[in-house]
C-alpha cells in the first residue's frame, strides 16, 4: 500500500468572490461554502470566520478539527461519510498544510456529561502553544442544527459540515503542482530489525462520544490497520469530552506515533501495523477480552514491542493498563503514552491506575496545571461558556475575559497521542 501525499502550503486564508489557491493564499467564497454545507437538511445555520496565528482571538465550543484533504486517486474522501467505506491509504491525496477547519457549536438537547465539554483554543498569548492548531490559519465554522434535532443528529450534522468543508477547501488544488511530495509505504526491510506495532485504543462510549473507523464506531477487538489508512481519512473523531484529551480528526490525519514509526521503518525498526481497538469500555469481560485478544494478535504478528496510547480519561487508563499487562505477559515490550491527573501543584499521584508491568511510561503532562489566558478582542465559536462545568470557576466569566484555567480546558493540550513536546517531569 503506497500513498502519495501531496502538500500545498497555505500562508493565509481570505474570503473572496471565488474559491481558489494561488501564491499560498487560499481564497474562500463564503456564500458558496455556506450554501454547500446548508444542503444538509439537519443543519439550520452556519457562520464562517477566519482565525490567524497571533490574532487576539479565542475559539470555544470546538467540536472537531480537520485538515483540508482531497482524494485524487485510489479511493474516496472520508470513507464511510462522504464516500463508500472501502479502504483508503493508497493512491494520491492532496492536503492543505497550515490550515484547519474548526467546527464549533453546541449539541442541542444533550444532557450534561453525555454532551459537550468546553474546549478552548487561544490563537496568541501563553495558552496558544498548548493546542495543535494555533500555528495554523483556522477556518472556524460555527454550526447550529435544525431545531428539534437530537444530540446525535446535531453531532452528525456538525461532523458532515466539517468533512465537507475540508474537501471543499482542498478542491482548488486539483491540477496544481504541490509544494511537497511524500511517498508513504512500508516496504520489506532487513529481517534483523525489531517488529514494532502500534496499539491504538480509540475512545468510544455511549451513542454520542466515539471514534469512527470508515463511518462506524471502533470496536473492542483489535483490527489490523495499515498506518496509511489512518493518515488518509479512515478515522474520524466524535470526541466531545474533556478538552485536553481530545483526539480530533486532524490528529488522526497527522497521527504523531504513526508518523514517528513510519519515519524509522527500515532504519531502526519494522513497522508491523496498527492494532486499532477501543477504550472507555464499560464491561469487565469486554475489557479482558480486548486486552487478551490484542496480546494474541500481537504475538501472531511476531511483534516484539508496541507503543500503546489511549484516548480520554477514567476507564481508558484501565483499558490501556490491561492491554499493557497482557502484552508484557505475552513477551511483547510496551511503552505507554499517558497524561497526568495530579493536583494543580503536581503533588498528587499522577495516574488513575497502574499495573506492575507498566515500566516504560511517557507523560504528556499534568492536565491540572493552571494556565493564564489573557483577555482577547474576539471570541469565535459561541457567545458564552458552556454550563455543566460546575468545577471550573473561570467559566462563570464572559468568554473573552482573562482566564485562569486548568490545561484540562485547553484543546488537545495533554492528548496522549503525543503531538506536543509538553511533558510531566519529576521534581
Amino acid at each position: 500500500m503506497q500513498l502519495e501525499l501531496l502538500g500545498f502550503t497555505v500562508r493565509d486564508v481570505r474570503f473572496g468572490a471565488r474559491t481558489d489557491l494561488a501564491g499560498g493564499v487560499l481564497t474562500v467564497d463564503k456564500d458558496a461554502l455556506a450554501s454547500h454545507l446548508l444542503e444538509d437538511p439537519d443543519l439550520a445555520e452556519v457562520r464562517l470566520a477566519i482565525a490567524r496565528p497571533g490574532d487576539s482571538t479565542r475559539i470555544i465550543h470546538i467540536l472537531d478539527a480537520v485538515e483540508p484533504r482531497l482524494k485524487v486517486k485510489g479511493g474516496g474522501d472520508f470513507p464511510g461519510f462522504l464516500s463508500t467505506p472501502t479502504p483508503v491509504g493508497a493512491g494520491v491525496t492532496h492536503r492543505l498544510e497550515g490550515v484547519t477547519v474548526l467546527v464549533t457549536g453546541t449539541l442541542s438537547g444533550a444532557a450534561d456529561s453525555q454532551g459537550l465539554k468546553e474546549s478552548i483554543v487561544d490563537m496568541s498569548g501563553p495558552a496558544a502553544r498548548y493546542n495543535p492548531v494555533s500555528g495554523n490559519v483556522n477556518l472556524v465554522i460555527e454550526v447550529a442544527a435544525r431545531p428539534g434535532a437530537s444530540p446525535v443528529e446535531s453531532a452528525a450534522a456538525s461532523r458532515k459540515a466539517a468533512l465537507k468543508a475540508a474537501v471543499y477547501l482542498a478542491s482548488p488544488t486539483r491540477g496544481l503542482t504541490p509544494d511537497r511530495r511524500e511517498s508513504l509505504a512500508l516496504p520489506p526491510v532487513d529481517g534483523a530489525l525489531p517488529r514494532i506495532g502500534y496499539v491504538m485504543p480509540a475512545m468510544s462510549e455511549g451513542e454520542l462520544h466515539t471514534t469512527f473507523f470508515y463511518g462506524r464506531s471502533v470496536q473492542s477487538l483489535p483490527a489490523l490497520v495499515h498506518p496509511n489508512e489512518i493518515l488518509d481519512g479512515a478515522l474520524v473523531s466524535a470526541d466531545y469530552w474533556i478538552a485536553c484529551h481530545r483526539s480530533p480528526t486532524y490528529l488522526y490525519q497527522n497521527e504523531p506515533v504513526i508518523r514517528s514509526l513510519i519515519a524509522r521503518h527500515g532504519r531502526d525498526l519494522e513497522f508491523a501495523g496498527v492494532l486499532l481497538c477501543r477504550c472507555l469500555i464499560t464491561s469487565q469481560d469486554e475489557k479482558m477480552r480486548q486486552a487478551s485478544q490484542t496480546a494474541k494478535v500481537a504475538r501472531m504478528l511476531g511483534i516484539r514491542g508496541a507503543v500503546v496510547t489511549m484516548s480520554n480519561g477514567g476507564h481508558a487508563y484501565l483499558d490501556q493498563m490491561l492491554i499493557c499487562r497482557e502484552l508484557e505477559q505475552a513477551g511483547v515490550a510496551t511503552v505507554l503514552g499517558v497524561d497526568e491527573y495530579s493536583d494543580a501543584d503536581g503533588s498528587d499521584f499522577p495516574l488513575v491506575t497502574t499495573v506492575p508491568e507498566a515500566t516504560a511510561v511517557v507523560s504528556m503532562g499534568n492536565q491540572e496545571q493552571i494556565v493564564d489566558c489573557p483577555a482577547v478582542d474576539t471570541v469565535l465559536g459561541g457567545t458564552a461558556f458552556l454550563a455543566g462545568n460546575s468545577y471550573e470557576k473561570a467559566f462563570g466569566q464572559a468568554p473573552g475575559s482573562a482566564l485562569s484555567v486548568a490545561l484540562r480546558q485547553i484543546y488537545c493540550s495533554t492528548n496522549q497521542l503525543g503531538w506536543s513536546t509538553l511533558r510531566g517531569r519529576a521534581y
Partner: protein
Amino acid sequence: MSTFRIVHYLNQFFGGLGGEEKADAAPTLRAGPIGPGVLLHDLCRGQAEVAATVTCGDNRMAEHPAETLRAVLDLVREAKPDLLVAGPAFGSGRYGLACAAVCSAARQELGVPAVTAMSPDNPGAESRGAHVIVAISGPTASTMKADLERLARLAVKIGRREPLGAADDEGYLPSGRRVNEFGTKTGAERMVEMLLRKVRGEPFASEVVVPAFEPVPPAPPVRDLSTATLAVVTTSGLVGAGNPGGVESWRATKWEKYDISGLSELSPDAFTCVHGGYDTRHIRANPNRAVPLDALRASEREGRIGRLHDVLYTTVGNVMPVLRASQFGREIAAELRSAGVEAAIFTAT
C-alpha cells in the same frame, strides 16, 4: 551574594573517629570541614564554607534516636547554619537513616534547609521527610568525588535559594512533586525512542515511575447480617435536589450526609446527581439506581439485614486526589464506627 555557612553531619567513620568500635560515639561539634567535608568545601568554590562538622556514631543514633537527635540538633543550632548537609551515606543503612532524620529535623525544627546524599536503595531515602533533598550517590565511597560534586552543586543552589531543575537533570531523588515542561521532542518521538531502547535491552528511564499502592485489606465478614446495622456510602455523586451543599462534579472537596430515616425509597424530587464523569440521566430519573434504598428497605422488612443506618454518606468520586479520598474515607469510617454500624455497602459508578 556573600558566602553562606554549611554545617556538615558525618558518622563516626567519615568523621575520622574510627570504625565499628566507635559506632557508639556521642555527638560532637568541631569547627571547619573534616574528611569528605574538605572536598565538599573546595567544591563549593567560595560560594559556601563548611563552617562546622557534627559527628555522631551510627549505633548511638539507631539505638537512642530521640535523645541523640536532640543532642545533634543542639550542636547544629549552636553552629548557626544557613544549610545543613549530611553524608554522603552511600549504601549504608544506619548512616542513611541518620542523615535523613537529621535533615528532616533541621528543616522542621530549626527551619534550616537541608540536603543529603545516598544511594536510591538506602532505607534512609524512603524515610526522608518532605522538603529534604536527597542527592543520588553510588552504593559505595568509590564514587565519592562525583557524588560530592553533585552534592556541592545542589548545596550551593539550595543555599542560594535558587530553584532546582527536574530531578533527572539535577541528580536528586524525586520529591513527589511533578511539573509540566516543554521539551525538544514530541511525546510520540519519546515513546518510539523509549520502546526501541526497551526492545534492544538498553537502559531507559520511564517518565512516570509507578509506585506500589498500599493494599487495603478486606474487613472480616459480617458475623450475622440479620442483626447488623448496615450503612450506604456512595461516590456516585447523588446529592439533594438543587445540590444545596455545592458538591463539585469533579475533584470534589467535600462529602455530605443525608437523613434517610423514614424514607422508603429515593425520590427524583428530593435527590439528583452531579457526577461529571458519566451519563447521569438514568440516575436522575431514578436515584435508587445509585443507592438502592427501595431494595434495602425490602431486605430490612424481610429480616435479611438487621437495620439500615439512618444516614446516607455521599460524594462525587470523579478524579479525586488519592490523599483526599483517603481522608474522606477515614472521616466517614470514624462516624460509622461511632454510630455502631457494622457493615457498609459502597455504590460506585
